[in-house]
Every structure is written in C-alpha cells, then in structure tokens.
C-alpha cells in the first residue's frame, strides 16, 4: 500500500486562507483576548467557575480532536489526566515544574501509543471498551505499585500559584489546542480522518494508512489530557489514585462535547458553558443524585439533540437558506467529499 505523496489539499482555495477563515480567526483571537481579562475583572466564585469552564473546554476540545472526526468514543480522558497528575506529583520535589508539564505530555504520548497500537487496528467497539476500563486499569497498577514499593497512597503537590495564574495557564493550553485542531483540520492527517469517519472501507481503498492516522491523532489528543493533569495537580494539592483516576471525568467530557456537537471545533465550547453552569446548579440541589442526572443527560442528548447545539444552530441556519461562502453543515461535507474524489482521480491520472 503506497502512502499518498505530499499533495495540495481540497481544491485550490484551501491552500491559502479564505476571507471567511480570516474572519473566523480574527473573531477567535478577539474572544481569546477578551477571555484573558476575566481574572482582572472577576474573582472568587465567578473566577472559580471560569476556571472550570476553561478546563472543561480544554478537555472536551482535545477529546474532540480524535473522537470528532473518527466517531470513536474515547472514554480514556480520566486515565491520561491521572497519569499527568501522577507524573507531576512524583517529580515535584526533584525537577522544575515546567519540565514536569512536558514530562506529563510525554507519559501521555507513550501510553496512548501503546493503547492505540493495540486497539485501533481492529473494530471501533473494542477501542471504546478498552478505553472505558483504562482508568481503572492504571489505577489498579498504581495502587499495587504503591503497595509494593511501600510509598504513601497520596502525594502532595505544593507549588505557589494564584487562581488567576491557573486560569491563564489553562486558557493558554486551550488556545494551543484550538490552534492544533485548526491545523489538523487543514492537514492531510485531518483530511484522512474525515474520510475514515465517513467510511473506513473507502479510506483503506484510497490508500490511507488508517491505523497510523488514528493512532497519531489519539496520541495528540491524549497528550493534551495528560498535560491538563500536570496543570491541575498543584491546584488540587493532593493526589491519590481514587481521585486522579475518577472515571466520572471521562463521561463528563464526552457529554459536554456531545452536547455542543462533535463536527465543529468550537462545538465543545457551546456544550461546556451551559453544562458547567447547569451541573454546578444540579450538584448543589441534588448532591446525591448526580449519577442519575448524568444518565438522564446522556439519554436526552442521544434522543433529542443527536447533533448537539452546533447541529441545531446549523439546522436553523440552513433553513434560512443562507449559503454564501460559508456552506455549513451537511453541504460542507458533500463539497469536501466531491472535492476529495476529484483530487484522488487527478492524482490517479498523474501517477498512472
């Protein structure tokens, strides 16, 4: 199977940055800068809530990088987050903090590569099942390791950081995730993944190395979750297996991303904001029924808004009949698809 040589992307226009894209970028940068001012204006409860929103946006968007285009539901966020926390907690007295952030990312990369190579070559369901138990698996190994080496079950992470600093760190990472997502979306890798998500058999027949594309993206997506672990560990201060590998996190991230919609990079943001606020309210009102409520949310999203909030918005947009340069939703995919086929045909001719 020959890999595709470096070739121009869809059509000619996508090589440069279109006017529409430039507008979107400008708006995104403005929102990003505006978000940076939050800690200067607010403090206390509002700032805490903002930190939650930024943190979950980072989680959900990095989850989306892999699960959005491939339609593989990854439930491993908690496992990678926990690994990042543990790397940070274990090394905090030995090496400087920035080194640990990088080390957490590296740990995430290694684990994601191993898991990805084992599970992503076969059916997607197996990957979902494996990712579901991954946090519990790593937690068991951690607990066992601590037992064998006789270390304490909890570790303290103490470095001096103010709340606004946490906020800015998380915001910066979120920005990086967005840039990464945008870049992947334009790259050959992102293009390959969209084809895989639409039809894996077609992707294989196009000469795409599907396993490699999936593993690479899973690694990128998971590394961000590990880095988030490193960023959040000092805020929590105390790390122990049950807390670091809490599987609830994985489900929350999935549900927020699904609520927002998984086929737009900015989808998770629209899910995170309402969900974080709603969840805050619900866990105060019904502290003992959070699991039940999470279940109800899952069902509501699957049955009532299967395409998420972005799907609803784009549905409404399409009904208005507005199809200037922005061609949203389904249409966009048709255009992408036909351009892809054209591209492939041309490439076939030149190589023949």
């Amino acid at each position, binding site marked *: 199977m020959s890999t595709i040589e470096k070739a121009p992307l869809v059509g000619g226009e996508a090589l440069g940055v279109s006017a529409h894209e430039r507008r979107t970028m400008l708006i995104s940068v403005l929102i990003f800068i505006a978000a940076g001012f939050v800690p200067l204006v607010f403090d206390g409860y509002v700032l805490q809530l903002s930190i939650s929103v930024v943190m979950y946006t980072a989680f959900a968007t990095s989850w989306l990088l892999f699960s959005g285009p491939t339609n593989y539901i990854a439930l491993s966020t908690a496992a990678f987050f926990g690994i990042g926390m543990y790397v940070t907690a274990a090394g905090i007295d030995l090496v400087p903090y920035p080194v640990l952030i990088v080390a957490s990312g590296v740990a995430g990369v290694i684990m994601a590569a191993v898991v990805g190579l084992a599970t992503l070559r076969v059916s997607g*369901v197996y990957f979902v099942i494996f990712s579901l138990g991954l946090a519990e698996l790593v937690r068991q190994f951690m607990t066992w390791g601590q037992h064998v080496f006789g270390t304490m079950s909890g570790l303290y992470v103490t470095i001096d950081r103010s709340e606004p600093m946490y906020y800015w760190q998380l915001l910066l990472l979120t920005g990086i995730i967005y840039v990464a997502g945008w870049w992947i979306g334009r790259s050959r890798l992102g293009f390959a993944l969209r084809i895989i998500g639409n039809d894996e058999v077609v992707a294989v027949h196009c000469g795409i190395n599907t396993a490699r594309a999936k593993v690479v993206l899973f690694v990128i997506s998971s590394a961000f979750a590990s880095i988030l672990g490193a960023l959040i560990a000092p805020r929590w201060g105390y790390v122990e297996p049950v807390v670091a590998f809490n599987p609830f996190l994985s489900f929350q991230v999935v549900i927020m991303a699904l609520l927002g919609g998984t086929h737009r990079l900015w989808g998770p943001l629209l899910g995170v904001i309402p969900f974080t606020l709603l969840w805050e309210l619900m866990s105060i009102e019904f502290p003992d029924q959070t699991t039940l409520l999470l279940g109800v949310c899952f069902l509501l999203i699957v049955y009532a808004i299967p395409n998420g909030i972005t799907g609803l918005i784009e549905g409404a947009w399409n009904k208005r009949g507005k199809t200037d340069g922005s061609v949203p939703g389904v249409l966009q995919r048709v255009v992408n698809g036909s351009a892809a086929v054209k591209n492939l045909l041309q490439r076939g001719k030149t190589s023949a």
Partner: protein
Amino acid sequence: MDIVIIGLLLGGTYALMAMGLQLQYGVARIMNLANGEVLIAGAFGAFWFFAGTKASPLFALLFVVPLAFALNWAIYRILILPLVRRAKNQGKLEVDSILATFGISFIFIGIMVAAFGAQYSDYSYLSEPIYIFGERYGLNRVVSFGCSILLCAGLYLWLHKTRAGLALRAVSVNPSAAGLVSINVIRTSAFAFALGGAVTAAGGVLLSMYLTFDASYGVVFTLKALIIVILGGVGDIRGTIVAAFVLGLAETAVASLIDPGLTLAAAYILFMIVLLVRPEGLFGRRTA
C-alpha cells in the same frame, strides 16, 4: 489445585453473565453497556429477598428473572428500537447504542443508590465449608456454580434444539437473510435482548451468594462480560463458555499469586493479547 478449582467455580458464574451479553450483542447487535447494572440489580433483588424472608436466594430467581426479562424487553422496545430505526449504518447504531446504554446504566446506578444506599452489601447464605480433594471451599460457591452450569446447559440446548433457538441463531448469523426466511427480526432481537438481560440478572443472583457488591460495581462486570464475549468470539456460545473459564482461572491466578487488587488488570492483559493475536476470538472465523 486451589487456584484451578476456585477459578473454575468463578468461571461458571462468569459464563452465565457473559451469555447474557452474548445474546444482546451477538443476536440483537446492541452493545449493552448497562449489562453490569442489570447484574447488580439482580444481586440486589436476591439481597432484598433474603433479608426479607430468610429463604434461599435461589427462590429470588423466580421473580428476578421474569422482571429482568420484562424490563429489558421494554428497554429494547422503547429506547433501543428508535435508534435502530434511525441509524443509517451499523457504525452509527453502535455509537448511539453505546451512548444510550451508558445513560441507562447511570440511571440504574442512581436508582439503586437511592434504594439501597452506596455502601457495600452482602449476606451470608450457606457459608459452610465443603471439601473437594481435601481442600475447603464455600458451599455457596459450589451451589452457585452448579446452578450456573444448569442454566448455561439449558440455554445451550434451547438454542440448538428448538425452532425458536434456531431463529435466534439465524438472526445472529445474518439479520437480513433471517428476514428473508420469514423470521421477524425485530421481534427476535427484542426477545434475545430481553432473554440476555434475564440471564445476566440470574447471574447476578448467583454471584450475590458469595460476592460483596455495591451499586456502582456494575461496570466491572460489564467489562468482564465484554472481554469474555470478545475472547470467545462474537456470536459463539461455545467460545463464550470456554472464555469465561479462561478468565475465571486467569483472575484467580493473578489474585492469589500476585495481588487481589489486580484482577481487572489480568482481564485486560488477556484482552490485549486477544486483540493483538486473534481479534476474531478463540473460535471465531476470520472475516475477509
């Protein structure tokens, strides 16, 4: 010797539980991630029955099994069927049913926590020793194993010797071809899903005789059942039974030789080996 016998006893109950999931995934083609919660619900049913009457928890099977059957049938008809009808392809259905059954499993957990509390529950029934090859074992384990094997054998014979069982196997092999020979695929699938739930709940009743459980423990059993089904090959009852014993033995070996906290790790390593070496399962046929 100890490990072998305890492993086999455990494997017997695992076989029953995994056969439940096998019916749901292999025949009805629904990856039911609420399977473990149904099992725990069965366990709570037995716990509640035993606390109230002090009669043998085996009698709890008489009401747990029909209830679980009805409940799972309703879940399939009301919640899953719209997804089946909506789905454009098998992949989309898989994603939807995974998400929906996650929702169902959380609702189960929520209800069970509200009804029975979040603490560990167990009860003591037949906890007297029995001697096999001169070693002591709990009588409850042996009784539980015996009942599981009886139920498994019954199910196996039913699937292979009756017309209804034949219809189920036909749907499992190819749903659209089954439709062509005038099998009502939707009704058969609903029946398989309900039967699978009932079998799993029966497994829960039997497990509760010697195992401590709590409301949130279901996911571990879901994972184990899934690993058994994949190890044995999807749609292969024989493979499921063999795989259940393999997992029971592997877990017991790891628990007694290394650390009891690593049972899931043992299951996962087994899973990983299968994925790397034989993704189609022990007896599964390789698809082209």
